């Protein structure tokens, strides 16, 4: 049974078409051309990006560059470059796209209904379900994998992947390579989390970082603890300070356009050496006072068990 409220919470129902959610549409009247168009308008870019990323994973960026040249030649009415696998890659992309659309838009047991069932299962087992977007990404992976054996010309004979059976694919989210990534310092993981407005638990930092030995670790812990206490409006000032702090290290980068408020990350900030008034306030589009945030951090540190490290009484 699909409960509409549940689906609205997880974002599928939040996408509206003429005041009606996709879930309601699928439940009541099934897919119509208009609803399909609206769905593709909203999720089409995500599906295409997933497809391209998956092709990039499997065939490398060189093959994608070839595909790009091939498509540009077709667009301009020139004859596409001879040799290479771009034509076959395009065929594979088209076949996969067709399979994805058939899966999403079929009348019975389509992707939205599958997601609803998966979510119910997760709730029943007491674990958090993945967002709908990740579910769609997995669908793209599955459909691409199913198409690969039909495009044998893209592989050398020894590595043709076997045809995969239809089966439970919702859990197939593991991306190889991510957990082994080494960091220059583990504290960067939490700085990144703070910049991306994630929930970072200060107790986890106490367990995993060396707060008494490293001032940077202690500062990160103070920011996490302060973030928890601050009302939503004041959190932005703290985020601005973190962005400023992160930008003041690393080899200086050539001047680039300022990052948007939504795309703050270590990657975009390290080496930027932002100025508070000219850059940080422009990113957040408001005037903010750095000394006020610093005072809040100081208060937080003085209230903490680490007060002796910042000049407070032990």
């Amino acid at each position, binding site marked *: 049974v699909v409960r509409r409220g549940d689906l609205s919470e997880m974002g599928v129902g939040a996408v509206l078409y003429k005041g009606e959610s996709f879930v309601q549409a699928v439940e009541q009247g099934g897919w119509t051309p208009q609803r399909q168009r609206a769905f593709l308008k909203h999720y089409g870019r995500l599906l295409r990006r997933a497809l391209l990323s998956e092709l990039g994973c499997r065939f490398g960026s060189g093959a*994608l560059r070839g595909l790009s040249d091939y498509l540009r030649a077709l667009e301009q009415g020139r004859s596409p470059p001879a040799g290479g696998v771009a034509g076959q890659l395009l065929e594979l992309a*088209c076949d996969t796209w067709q399979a994805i659309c058939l899966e999403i838009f079929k009348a019975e047991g389509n992707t939205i209904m599958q997601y609803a069932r998966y979510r119910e299962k997760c709730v029943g087992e007491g674990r958090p379900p*993945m967002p709908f977007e990740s579910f769609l990404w997995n669908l793209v992976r599955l459909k691409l994998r199913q198409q690969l054996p039909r495009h044998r010309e893209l592989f050398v004979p020894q590595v043709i992947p076997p045809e995969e059976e239809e089966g439970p694919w919702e859990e197939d989210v593991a*991306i190889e390579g991510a957990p*082994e990534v*080494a960091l220059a310092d583990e504290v960067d993981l939490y700085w990144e989390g703070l910049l991306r407005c994630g929930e970072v638990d200060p107790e986890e930092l106490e367990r995993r970082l060396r707060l008494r030995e490293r*001032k940077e670790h202690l500062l990160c812990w103070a920011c996490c603890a302060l973030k928890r206490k601050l009302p939503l409006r004041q959190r932005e000032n703290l985020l601005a300070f973190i962005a400023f702090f992160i930008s*003041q290290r690393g080899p200086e980068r050539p001047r680039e356009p300022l990052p948007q408020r939504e795309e703050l990350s*270590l990657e975009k900030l390290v080496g930027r050496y932002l100025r508070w008034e000219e850059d940080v306030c422009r990113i957040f589009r408001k005037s903010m006072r750095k000394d006020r945030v610093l005072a809040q951090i*100081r208060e937080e540190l003085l209230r903490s068990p680490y007060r002796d490290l910042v000049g407070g009484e032990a």
Partner: protein
Amino acid sequence: MEIERFVEEAQREAQQRRLVSAHPAEEALWAYVGGQLPERARWRIGAHLGSCLSCAGKAEAFRKQLAELDPLLQARLPVPPLIAPRPWWERLGVPILKEELEKLLRPRRLAQHALAYALGSLALFGLNLLLNELFAPPPSPLSSPAPPPTWWPYVVGVWGGVVGVHLLLVLWARRRR
């Protein structure tokens, strides 16, 4: 200790980063760029990119490639079957009517309808006779004798009407479904 000095010292510590040795797999970088990693893995790779210029360069190149390819590929991907415009007769439900008419012309259904037609004809013939008797004008010596009763248009009309209403109901029910 003044808070400004504390932050400066933290800054100095942050500057003294050692070099990273293990790099994310290309697959993980593609997934990161596509925005489809679980939260923690996303943070980890994002944090790595902050201190690894070669991986950051790769990620940026992947991003550019994606942005460039997306519109080109969009123009070439096939349109899902339902989105393709349907001809007007399909939108009006002509295929449904055709299907129902085919059902109607099956021998069993045809026999049922013929029986109903025959019974209906008899009933209407009787009704026609009765009505003629009741409403027939009195015989006049001046006028010519009354023409024989014409009952068949009524029978055909009513039967056609019944079939028409039946088909409309079927059409309505199928569209609702």
